[in-house]
């Protein structure tokens, strides 16, 4: 489900972008931050996400 949430965030960012909403850049940065946090948490724990 976590990946579905990331994709929903991408869609929300796209919608904000399409409507030239003021939240487009904050939403993009939020998406980057949560995906990055997820990847970093994977990299700093024993192999969980992979292979």
């Amino acid at each position, binding site marked *: *489900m*976590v*990946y*579905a949430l990331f994709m929903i965030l991408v869609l929300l960012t796209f919608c904000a972008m399409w409507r030239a909403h003021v939240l487009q850049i904050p939403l993009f940065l939020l998406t980057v931050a949560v995906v990055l946090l997820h990847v970093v948490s994977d990299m700093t724990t024993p192999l969980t996400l992979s*292979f």
Partner: protein
Amino acid sequence: MAQLYLLAATVNVWVLVLILTAAFGFQLVAGEPPCPLCVVQRIALMMCALGPLSVLRQSRDGVLACRDIAVGSGIAIISALLGAAVSTRQVLLHILPGDPGFGSPFLGLHLYTWCLIAFVGQITASALMLIGSAWLKENERMAWRMTNVTAGAFVFIVVANLLSVIAEAGFNWDLPPDPVGYLLFKK
């Protein structure tokens, strides 16, 4: 010059959509559901497309400014860096001699290796677009008809991946490390 930019942004989005479609097709045809790192790489590819799409969005108003290209290229570069970090991690996980890698190779390389190449290519393309913006005339007026079709293709492939990952994860928070099927349809 503005028309050339819009053509480049459109081609950029379509290349990313085609990569995502190919990965999705590979998943369906080869019967290999993507692993968690593969899904994160797909998400990074989607985020890369947001950059050129923001440039295309601005063109709907009939005017393209250097600021729009700077924002779009920045979005694409940040996303590609994120994706490159993930695909590099997956390449390194399988770098030991004798490791067969994850999934079937395509043209001799695994999909995560192709992804790394795609992310490096995206960074290069966005950097070239940034350099080229030096020759853009401010507030040059133009018309571009491909914007809605391109955006529609992007939304379609994102929604398809969204449904696929929901089917794959079922009601679990995370995907299994080595997925073999779609948990939503298993009893």
